[in-house]
């Protein structure tokens, strides 16, 4: 175990992937010579030479070439600096990468990994603040993960790279540097998928992911002091989706809250709620509650962002209300 930041854990995972698998490539804007705008890829170009390189600001070329290189046996790891920028080239993931294996009945595959990050940060503008995981989670053929901890930033990235299908790992930049955590670096690479109960509780199941995991955990502590015992599930992967863990928890708690930073309507929280309404309606003792950004664009000013984005206090209030329902 080594103490490291989420960003350093990513770096370690990339280092391991490049070291262990000769067919990996790492590229994107600014990733090589200077190690990435967030430093996640620092030192890798020096260590791995031209397998790590900088690209022009051409997301279609980045993603498209990843598809082609993957078809020919490479295992490209490409960076889309902000998830918002994926929208200039979404075709290459949704129309191209996702189809390769299916349409060719496995004769061709596209085992590429996209690393990107998302979310609002104080001052970030409306074009750099979106949480777009729902777009990818709605795309059959893709694998979608959102690590919430340094350990998962490391492990899930490796799982994605090892995965034989196109995967997108959506990081959250508020997590990159904000603290260090002990990270185990040499465990075997796990297959993609699997949620995790990160706090046990008897009264409410909170399903959440990415940066909201910590807020939910903190809110659960507040709620505990008001007598509401909250179980928190870090969903980790949206595709494949581990409903088993969610439903097992719900069997115990009978109350469901989903928390995400994406805006509510059409967010992936809807899918969790829908699955429960379909497959486990009887388990529910109270209405499902989604805590999310209301349907709005995201303003830049921090105090305006705060008025929209669920805070720990906001989640705690909702938990207490749901617990007392």
């Amino acid at each position, binding site marked *: 175990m080594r103490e490291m930041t989420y960003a350093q854990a990513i770096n370690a995972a990339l280092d391991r992937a490049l070291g262990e698998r000769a067919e990996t*490539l790492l590229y994107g804007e600014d990733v090589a010579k200077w190690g990435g705008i967030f430093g996640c890829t620092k030192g890798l170009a020096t260590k791995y030479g031209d*397998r790590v*390189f900088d*690209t*022009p600001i*051409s997301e*279609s*070329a980045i*993603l*498209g*070439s*990843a*598809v*082609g*290189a*993957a*078809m*020919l*046996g*490479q295992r*490209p790891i490409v960076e889309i600096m902000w998830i918002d920028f994926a929208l200039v*080239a979404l*075709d*290459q993931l949704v*129309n*191209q990468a996702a*189809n390769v*294996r*299916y*349409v*060719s*009945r*496995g*004769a*061709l*595959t596209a085992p590429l990994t996209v690393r990107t990050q998302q979310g609002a940060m104080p001052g970030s503008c409306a074009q750099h603040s979106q949480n777009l995981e729902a777009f990818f989670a709605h795309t*059959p*053929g893709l*694998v979608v993960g959102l690590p919430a901890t340094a350990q998962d930033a490391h492990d899930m990235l490796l799982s994605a790279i090892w*995965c*034989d*299908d196109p995967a997108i790992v959506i990081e959250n930049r508020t997590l990159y540097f904000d603290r260090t955590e002990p990270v185990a670096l040499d465990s075997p690479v796990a*297959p*993609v*998928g699997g949620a995790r109960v990160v706090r046990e509780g008897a009264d409410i199941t909170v399903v959440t992911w990415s940066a909201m995991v910590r807020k939910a955990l903190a809110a659960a502590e507040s709620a505990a002091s008001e007598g509401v015992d909250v179980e928190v599930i870090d969903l980790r992967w949206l*595709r*494949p*989706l*581990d*409903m088993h863990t969610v439903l097992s928890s719900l069997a115990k708690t009978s109350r469901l809250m989903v928390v995400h930073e994406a805006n509510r309507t059409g967010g992936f929280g809807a899918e969790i709620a829908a699955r429960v309404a379909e497959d486990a309606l009887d388990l529910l003792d109270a209405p499902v509650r989604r805590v999310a950004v209301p349907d709005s664009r995201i303003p830049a000013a921090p105090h305006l962002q705060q008025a929209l984005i669920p805070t720990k206090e906001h989640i705690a209030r909702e938990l207490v209300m749901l617990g007392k329902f």
Partner: protein
Amino acid sequence: MTAIGVLSGVAAEPGLALRERHCRALQDLDLYEAMLAIRVFEERVRELRLDGDVVGSVHLEIGQEAIPVGALLALRPGDPVFSTYRGHGWALACGSPFAAVFGELLGRETGVNGGRGGSAYFSDVAHGFYGENSIVGAGAPIACGAALAAKRAKSGAAVLTVFGDGAMNQGSVSEALNFAAALKLPVIFLCENNRYSELTLLADVVPSDQLYERGGPYRIPGVRIDGNDARTVAAAVAEAADRARAGDGPSLIEAMTERIAGHYIGDHEQYRGPGELERICADEPLVRLARNLPTADLREVQGRVAHLMRRASTSALEADLADASAVRDHLYADGALYA
């Protein structure tokens, strides 16, 4: 009779064997035979479409056959080829068996992709055909990736990506040109300029229709060639492939041609001017080449091709429909990922 067998008619799965050949070693009659095979294949597809055996949009390459034939004579086995939805001829030129491509269009289990791809989006990697693409321009960046892989593997492969004139206005193609040139990738950008994008004349939506110039700002050598002459195409592609294999980066070839069967089957072609079709039909690759070939030779080749295509389409029609119970297979490598 001089044809030396670009049609591997004796094999279990008849198709074209162009990659192993060299253009200069072939007679005009061989070139004719290869192009005719594609032509007759597509005419049969048209019948099947009009009969309702094939359904959906079908884009024929009729009139443009000299480009895939010429290009594949210049390529080697192992050189990946990426085409557009107008790709039957490209697959065949790569060597895809006629019956397997018929089968694909007919949704047969024996189709190259078991009916998953259909006319506009199939691949046949066993023959180096990395597939069609139904998103205009999307194949260009993908081919760059294949070239990146080839470069890394030092495989000596040259990658060919084909797209239409209209595709040159798609941003992804510009990005691919710069990307390939910046990384000196072994890729050949081949633009089939048939002057039209669906119903629209290229000249109506560009300030200049000299598309080969589009590589200029990226220092990509560009040529405009007669795309209705297979030898000319082969020469240009061979030069570009040499450049690619030598590590000198991408090339852009603008092959001037005409499609003489509409954008897709069912296109009324109202956009044609008076006499336009007659004019272009008089110069299409088969007509042009046939002019100097003995009638008896032509007859023999035509007979052989017709026979093969009848056999291939019949065998495809007789094959089983793709197994619908497997329709959800192959979404992921691992069944556990379907959840």
